[in-house]
């Protein structure tokens, strides 16, 4: 089982960037007024940020990183690892991490690579970069996580179009022997790989002229094969089934009780799902911050974006004990328990 502690790694800073453009779901003409009311109340997304054509996840991550490194007083020359977690990379080839390494002026001695994960990506990314820093004795690293999902949602697909928003984040990590160990519980069920999928454009299904043909799946759901297909019912059932036991096992392994945790920051899937998970775990509402009402489901960025949006002041002031949990596309899910102290957490940047 992928349940393990990770000692000696401290989170020094978290920053998030979003596009300036706001889309209000009230103006989505493909839903009736009654459907809009139900959607905003139940799914919980009133508005979201949308990147203009050509703005990439790495552009958002870059803006966040420049701001955060400035506030931390970090010299780019000292950064020895950059990990980019996203499912909306700049190019099919090459990896985006190298492009960011160059743009940020990091040295050639810096290792940089991509990880392709979505909703669970932040937690997985923390485990990967943290483990590598711990094993290799790397002192400073940047974890850059986010997605521009709105370029790949079908405008006439009401199951995805009003749900997703765009964001890029950066988390600064440091080697610190005094840091309390993080604890991870990471899981996968590839049987559900079709539950969230863009079918064409990879090597399995190359792009053909038919890839652009819009298909009517059901009433209110029309999309082509280069746009994301979401089996909402399947993902919902999966999340209700798997997240609670994953977090319970994590807390057991970390030797913590529910009361020991200041905040449970969950992937911002949708309000109904998150509230159901919160109630199943008997977490009081004030310990479960949200960002989806303002920013939508921001895929891999949702956990750090929620920290930037909702608990930034607390993170900057003193010590916090957090459980972060991501779940979705893959199907992939994972949680981490970690302790922080005076994390540099600037206001959300708009570009």
């Amino acid at each position: 089982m992928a349940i393990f502690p990770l000692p000696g790694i401290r989170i020094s800073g978290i920053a998030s960037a979003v596009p300036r453009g706001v889309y209000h779901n009230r103006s989505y003409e493909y839903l009736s007024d009654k459907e809009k009311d139900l959607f905003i109340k139940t799914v919980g997304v009133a508005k979201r940020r949308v990147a203009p054509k050509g703005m990439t996840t790495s552009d958002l991550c870059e803006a966040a990183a420049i701001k955060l490194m400035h506030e931390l007083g970090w010299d780019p020359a000292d950064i020895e690892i950059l990990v980019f977690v996203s499912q909306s990379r700049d190019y099919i080839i090459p990896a985006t991490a190298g492009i960011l390494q160059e743009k940020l002026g990091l040295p050639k001695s810096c290792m940089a690579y991509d990880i392709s994960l979505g909703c669970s990506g932040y937690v997985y990314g923390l485990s990967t970069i943290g483990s590598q820093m711990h094993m290799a004795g790397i002192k400073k690293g940047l974890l850059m996580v986010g997605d521009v999902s709105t370029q790949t949602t079908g405008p006439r697909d009401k199951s995805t179009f009003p749900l997703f928003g765009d964001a890029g984040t950066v988390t600064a990590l440091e080697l610190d022997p005094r840091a309390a160990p993080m604890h991870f519980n990471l899981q996968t069920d590839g049987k559900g790989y079709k539950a969230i999928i863009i079918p064409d454009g990879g090597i399995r299904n190359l792009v053909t002229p038919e890839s652009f043909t819009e298909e009517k799946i059901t009433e209110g759901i029309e999309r082509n094969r280069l746009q994301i297909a979401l089996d909402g019912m399947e993902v919902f059932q999966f999340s209700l089934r798997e997240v609670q036991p994953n977090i319970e096992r994590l807390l057991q392994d970390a030797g913590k009780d529910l009361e020991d945790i200041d905040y449970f920051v969950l992937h911002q899937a949708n309000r109904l799902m998150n509230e159901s998970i919160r109630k199943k775990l008997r977490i009081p509402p004030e310990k479960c911050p949200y960002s989806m009402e303002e920013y939508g489901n921001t895929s891999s960025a949702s956990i750090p974006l929620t920290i930037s949006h909702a608990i930034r002041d607390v993170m900057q002031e003193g010590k916090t004990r957090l459980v972060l949990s991501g779940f979705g596309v893959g199907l992939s899910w994972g949680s981490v328990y970690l302790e922080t102290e005076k994390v540099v957490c600037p206001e959300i940047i708009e570009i």
Partner: protein
Amino acid sequence: MYFCENSVKLMIDIHQFITSVEEEFEEMPKGVLTSESPLREHFTWDSINALIFIAHVNVNYNVEITAEDLINSTTVGDLYNIIKSKADSSSPSTVTVPS
């Protein structure tokens, strides 16, 4: 150590179930549903309403029902019986992710 009470909450009777459903769907008039009520007259199984119902049953009774369970139930009583039989059996999972 952390323990969450995972035990299935047994539904004592259908009236309790009906009351909890009426509370969940705020806009629904109270005291109207009976075990004989046809589900389709009271609920539209569009995706969001189905998810609300599935989440309600999962959170309150720790039972996993599917969209098919909703579609296959004619009356409120039919659905209650499905939920009760799943609650009574100890099988942890009834839904599989399609491959």
